[in-house]
C-alpha cells in the first residue's frame, strides 16, 4: 500500500504538533489529482453539495490519515472528495461535490 504523506515545515512561531497543523490544503494533493484526473486540478472550481460554497480545489481542507485522502469544504466541513489507493490504482469519489469545473 502506498502511504500518502505530507511535506513538513515548522516555524518557531507555533508550538510543534499543533493539531490544526496536520490539516493541509488541495496543493498537497496536486500530484494525486493529476494521477486521478489526468490533468492539473488545483485551480478547478468545486461547489459544495452540502452548503453551496464555491472554492478552488487548492483551498479545500485536506486530511490524509494514511488510509486515503479526504478533501472537505472549508465552510461546512462536508466531505467533497475521497481518494483511496489500492492495488496501485488511485480512485476517487466525488459525491460530495455538486459540481467540479
Amino acid at each position: 500500500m502506498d502511504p500518502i504523506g505530507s511535506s513538513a515545515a515548522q516555524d518557531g512561531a507555533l508550538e510543534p504538533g499543533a493539531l490544526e497543523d496536520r490539516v493541509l490544503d488541495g496543493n498537497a494533493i496536486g500530484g494525486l489529482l493529476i494521477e486521478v484526473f489526468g490533468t492539473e486540478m488545483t485551480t478547478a472550481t468545486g461547489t459544495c453539495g452540502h452548503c453551496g460554497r464555491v472554492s478552488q480545489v487548492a483551498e479545500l481542507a485536506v486530511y490524509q490519515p494514511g488510509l486515503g485522502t479526504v478533501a472537505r469544504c472549508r465552510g461546512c466541513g462536508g466531505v467533497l472528495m475521497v481518494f483511496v489507493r489500492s492495488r496501485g490504482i488511485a480512485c476517487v469519489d466525488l459525491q460530495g461535490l455538486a459540481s467540479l469545473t
Partner: protein
Amino acid sequence: MAGTAVRGRLTWQAATVSSLVDETAKVRTLVFEVPDWPGHQAGQHLDIRLTAEDGYRAEREYSISSAPGEPVTITVERLDDGEVSPYLTEEVRPGDEIELRGPIGGYFVWDPSDGGPLMLVAGGSGIAPLRAMIRDRARLGSTVPVRLLYSSRSWADVIYRDELSQHSEGLTVIHALTRAQPPGWTGYARRVDQQMLTEVAWPAAQSPLTYACGPTSFVESVSAGLVALGYPAERIRTERFGATGG
C-alpha cells in the same frame, strides 16, 4: 458524480542529486539533475518517493526552491521525529538517485506577468516557493514591487539569509524572529500578529497579490489578518505545509 480511476500523465522518474547546500543547521537544499525536466513555474512543487529494500514506501511533497531555468532544487527542514526529512538532510549523498515527479501545481504559482504589488509571507521553510518567485522576478528583471514578511525562530534559522540580504531593487524583506534575536536587533521579535501585518503589508488600496506559505495555523492566521486589513480573499493564495510528516 461517481468514482473513477484514470491513469494520469505524471510519471515517477529517477533524478540524481548533484550537490547539497547546508542552508542552516537543520535545513539543506538538494540540487537535482532531472533527465527530461519539462521546466517549471515559480511556486510549483514536486513529489518525492522513497522506497526501502523491503518495499516500504514514503512519499512527500516539496516546493521547488529554484527559479524556472535554474537546476531543480528543494529545501528540506529536518524534523527530529520525521521519517523522510532526516534521510534527505543527513543520509543522501551527491550521486544518489531519488524518485520524483513534477512539476505540480497551478494555483500557488506566480510570474511577473501576474503583476503586483506582491505580498509574500513565509513561516519557516514556507520560504521555499516564495524564494523561487523572488529569484524568477530577479532573473526576468521584473520591477513588480515585493514585500516579504519572513518569520523564523532566530537569525541562525533564516534560510537563504545572505541571498535575501542582498540589496534588490523593489524588494523589501522584513524579518520576524520569534524565539531569539541577535544583540542589537531592532526588528520584530515576536510572532506575526495583526499589528505587524498592519505595519508591514501593502495598503489594501494598492490591490496587492499575496502568497502565504508555512505551517497551517500560521498561514490561516496571516490570511485572516490580511482579510481584516481589507485584502480580498481572491487575491490571497495560500499553501499549507502542515507540521508533521517529515
